[in-house]
């Protein structure tokens, strides 16, 4: 790759393309400043979270403007590519971050909201960078920004029992070690890819012939890193433990944002770099593990009683569904993968928001028993939860249903029918997983034995309302963005 392309000065387009990322990067500083100046307490908490949410809303506004004005193109010498693809992923990531931020006040850590909000936003920044990254360095940079903030977030539990604290630290450490190892795989893969081409630019990889062993090994190691971060089956074991140990807002955040960021990298790699012949030879293991993930994820969820663990396993399977849409690299498949990712964000974050309202404090966070009798105690919340769970299970009348239909259609178009079959099988298993919670909510119980729900904050209600509305509306107007094919040039 000619070095000249990377030489400054950069034009105004370069900076305007990165404007949303800039907003997300700078807002936490303001939030931290406010956190520093104001005395601890309810007003400070509100203001810090308000600043963060406002920053993300601003980023979303700019992203929508960028999509509408359609001035797409590469920025910073092809380091970052602004396009429908990166905007779609960035929108999903920002929305997930907002809803996760709204869950923060339900936790007992009243004096930690400044750092938590800042870390969460910087982590978001990493995912946003990954969605637009078009060279290996940028991908790695985004990944590290995303992960480093998350390691801290996982361990941030201050006011909790010792057991709970130990769990959280265990989660953080486990995440740090395992994730670093995956990063190592990925980095080694990148090094080999660099060796094969002499360039960190993704475009250079397109020209490499299939028989180049360096290239093949590089792609293999790279994909192992991807599979680990997305949580596909042989590399998924860290996920339930980390999700269970981490504080609820961090879990909700991770369940969408890390996966979305990595999925974006994988999709760009798949659509931009690998030619169809590469596809079959190099990527079929990913389709295979996606298929296995649908089954194993749902089987693993069968016996979980902790909501966070359950949703971790369910997330493994859900990502398998999304990858099924990507199989065969069709344009429609890409659109439906992004559509389903958006739907997954809404239904999953919705379920987490309800859990945040139901779990009284971080002591016994999210055990399923908290849901028993919810149907009589709090019919609206129970109905919303049932709705999200039906959507996760792919039952009507929810967006999850139409999302599955679209994925199935795309597998029929591309001919990956065996993935469709596994999807059906996995979904059939998952019915029990999700409906079991619905059952717990609606089976008549003696109300005397059930504790009231008194959430520390009512902010997650916003998440519940928006997510249920979105889950309902997308069923009837499945708007999948056009122009979402990732470009590298």
């Amino acid at each position, binding site marked *: 790759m000619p070095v000249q392309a990377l030489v400054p000065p950069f034009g105004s387009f370069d900076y305007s393309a990165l404007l949303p990322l800039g907003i997300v990067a700078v807002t936490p500083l303001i939030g931290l400043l406010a956190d520093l100046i104001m005395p601890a307490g309810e007003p400070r908490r509100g203001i810090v979270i308000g600043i963060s949410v406002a920053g993300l809303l601003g980023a979303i506004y700019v992203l929508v403007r960028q999509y509408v004005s359609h001035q797409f193109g590469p920025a910073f010498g092809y380091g970052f590519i602004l396009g429908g693809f990166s905007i779609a992923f960035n929108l999903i990531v920002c929305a997930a971050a907002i809803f996760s931020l709204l869950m923060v006040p339900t936790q007992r850590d009243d004096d930690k909201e400044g750092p938590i909000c800042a870390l969460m936003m910087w982590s978001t920044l990493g995912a946003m960078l990954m969605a637009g990254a078009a060279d290996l360095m940028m991908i790695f940079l985004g990944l590290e920004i995303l992960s480093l903030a998350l390691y801290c977030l996982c361990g941030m539990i201050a006011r909790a029992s010792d057991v709970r604290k130990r769990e959280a630290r265990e989660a953080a450490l486990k995440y740090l070690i395992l994730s670093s190892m995956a990063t190592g795989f990925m980095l080694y893969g990148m090094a080999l890819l660099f060796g094969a081409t002499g360039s960190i630019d993704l475009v250079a990889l397109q020209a490499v012939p299939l028989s180049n062993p360096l290239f093949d090994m590089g792609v293999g190691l790279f994909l192992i890193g991807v599979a680990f971060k997305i949580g596909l089956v042989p590399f998924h074991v860290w996920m339930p433990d980390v999700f269970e140990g981490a504080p609820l807002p961090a879990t909700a955040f991770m369940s969408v944002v890390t996966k979305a960021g990595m999925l974006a990298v994988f999709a760009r790699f798949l659509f931009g770099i690998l030619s169809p012949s590469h596809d079959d030879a190099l990527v079929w293991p990913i389709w295979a593990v996606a298929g296995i993930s649908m089954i194993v994820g749902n089987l693993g969820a069968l016996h979980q009683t902790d909501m966070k663990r359950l949703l971790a396993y369910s997330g493994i399977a859900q990502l398998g569904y999304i990858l099924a849409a990507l199989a065969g690299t069709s344009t429609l498949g890409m659109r439906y993968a992004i559509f389903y990712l958006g739907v997954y964000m809404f239904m999953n974050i919705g379920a987490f928001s309800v859990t945040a309202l139901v779990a009284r404090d971080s002591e016994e966070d999210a055990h399923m028993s908290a849901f028993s009798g919810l149907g009589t105690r709090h019919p609206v919340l129970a109905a919303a939860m049932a709705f999200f769970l039906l959507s996760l299970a792919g039952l009507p009348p929810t967006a999850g249903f139409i999302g599955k239909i679209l994925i199935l259609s*795309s597998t029929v178009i591309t001919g990956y029918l065996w993935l469709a079959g596994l999807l059906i099988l996995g979904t*059939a298993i998952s019915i029990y997983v999700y409906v079991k919670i619905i*059952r717990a909510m609606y089976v*008549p119980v003696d109300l005397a034995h059930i504790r009231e729900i008194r959430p520390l904050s009512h902010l997650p209600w916003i998440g519940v309302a928006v997510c249920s509305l979105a889950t309902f509306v997308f069923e009837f107007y499945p708007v999948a963005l056009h122009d979402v094919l990732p470009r590298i040039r």
Partner: protein
Amino acid sequence: MLGALVGGTLILGLLTFALPPSAERTAKWYGVAVALAGLILILFMNPWSPPPDESTRWLSYPFSSDYHLGIGGISYAIVEMLALCTTCALLATKVPRQRNFVGLMLMLEGSMLGLFLTRDLLVFALLWDAMLIPVFLLMIGWSVHPATAWRFLIYNVSGGLLLLLATAAYGVIYGTTDVIGKGILPPLSDAWAPWILAGFAVAFLVKTPVWPLHTWMPDTYAELPAPVAAVVGAVQSKAGLYGFIVIGLPLFGAQMHQFAPALLTLGYVGLLYGAFVALTEGEARKVVAYSSLSHLGLILAAIFVFNEYALRGAVVYIVAHGLFTAALFILLGFVEAREETSALSRIGGLARRNPKLAGAMAIAALATLGLPGLAGFVGELFILVGIYQAGYGWLAAVALIAIILAAAYMLRVYQGFMHGPEQADLPQRPDLRPLELLALAPLFAALVLIGVFPGIARYPDQAYAMIGTTPLVMLEKSR
């Protein structure tokens, strides 16, 4: 008007939850009023000049799909029966937490109305799954054993998922799923069509149910609260048969012929197996459940002999079976409310103190066993004539065995409950109240009406042309 019927029932059903939980009687009468309004609306639609179709675009990619509602002759028959059964079931409802119960029943009715009225495969698949949810919630909320509820849900959703996959495949290949009621359509390629039809068929067979996919059914029917059992047993079980008629016949004519031997066999195994088990079953609800298996097997066979008479008979029998099954479940609900059991060994000699109950039971039992003058007979006669005419004389003869057995098991239930020695330890309870009689009267009236004037169950010939009987008969001859 159709959109208002389906959407109105669903929304009014949802609105039931706005009533205070203590308003149990209000909720019941609200439910009856909504269901009755729907019934009246349907009765005023003339099948010979049906109201216009209503259609709104849903999906454009990867295939086009519309919220398309339309009422053809066959939909008309089933929807009428559905509204009637729901009204009667709600009239007979007396359960704890009645508000929630009524709300769920109305949503069940709304989703099934949509299922039988939609002209789009994808909407059909959507409602196919959607109608399971109210039933499942009714099961877990009103003390059905969890294992039964799970078996019901998992069996049916698995079928529904195959239906979904088949629908997606059909849509992608054919370009649109707005295909129901469009007459005979150009067939799909041979590579795909059998598999797609197989996906549909499994869903239909589970839902009906047909032997050997019936194992969820007896417990479900035995444990559901009586009004729900009436609606599910009478109407939801017809969704699969309806699917074979309006989706299988016109869209997959050749493959239906290909599948016919297997499905005829399954239908006949169910016909005989159901009849024999019903003969030995000790619980009245399960007798009705297995008799359903038997009768529905006969209807399935009637569809798969590809004969116009058999098909007309199947439609009449679908309605008749719905009416008498609903009546039987409602009646058994009354018996259980009085005696707290429906085991044959525990009950006896009710007729002496409860003559009205005995009389009602007699009518329902006689309708089930196909007494001339009641609706069941008309359907059975047409089906048997059709099967004979299609060249399966010996199959018609075998079906007769099951019809004779029907007399045996239904009379066994009637005799066991109503006659014989009175059980000494059985509580003495009053006879049917006027309101309870009112819940049964419309069903009996419809049974007699169709039995005496079978003409009113005749639907416009164009309805049969729509599902392609005539060309199918030609296909049959050319084969």
